[in-house]
């Protein structure tokens, strides 16, 4: 499906925002800035987070199922209880920088 807007990619800047339980499914969030944002319980499933900045953000209990995490910055990102099933391009190095717990659902390959 096309939206007619593909030609222009606009990085979203929501750094420090309080956006708990918000929905942004299948969105192009590449280069978006979510640093230090409170995204607890948010649903960004199947979104493209390539080169996005999630530094220090709270994604606890968020749904990132099927998201593309290529080069996504996850330093200090709270991923406790986060659903990462089916996430693409998530590396061990990225995961090591994030905060996870037993409730974090990791991608099959991770």
């Amino acid at each position, binding site marked *: 499906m096309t939206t007619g*807007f593909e030609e222009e990619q606009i990085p*979203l800047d*929501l750094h420090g*925002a309080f*956006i708990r339980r*918000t929905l942004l*499914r299948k969105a192009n969030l590449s280069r978006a800035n979510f640093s230090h944002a409170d995204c607890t319980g948010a649903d960004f499933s199947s979104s493209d987070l390539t080169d996005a900045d999630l530094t220090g953000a709270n994604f606890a209990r968020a749904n990132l199922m099927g998201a593309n995490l290529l080069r996504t910055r996850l330093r200090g990102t709270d991923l406790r209880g986060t659903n990462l099933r089916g996430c693409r391009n998530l590396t061990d190095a990225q995961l090591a920088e994030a905060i996870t717990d037993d409730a974090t659902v990791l991608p099959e390959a991770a």
Partner: protein
Amino acid sequence: MQWWIAFSEVVRNLGLVVGGAIGIYLAWLRVTAANQQAEAQRRQAEATARQADLGRHKLVTDLFQQAVGQLRDEKLEVRLFGIYTLRQIVEDYPDYKRPVIELLSAYVRDNPVKWGEGDPPVDIREIFNILGRTLEYDNDDGI
């Protein structure tokens, strides 16, 4: 008699040459006039298009400014109207997508309301609807 025939042929040929030259000249005048008319029409069309573009720009700018004012209002319904106006702008005028997204992002960042563990308020939900639609992409290789 021979001389007269030769003379009349020369006169006839000269007449043909002069007539032809006049014809070419008239045709050239006609083509020039047609070209000038076409050029004038092209300029007129360009001026009309410029005028329409200016009118469109003014309309969107007015709507945008109106929406910015409404987003600052205390009443939720007024703010919602501003958000709906911005949604309409981005749908009708996709080239204004960037300022609309930046404005809505700033609204979300500066929003002082914290809704705890509950669902986001309606204005935030509507903004994320707009962001979701505007930033939607084709995820063929996704799950």
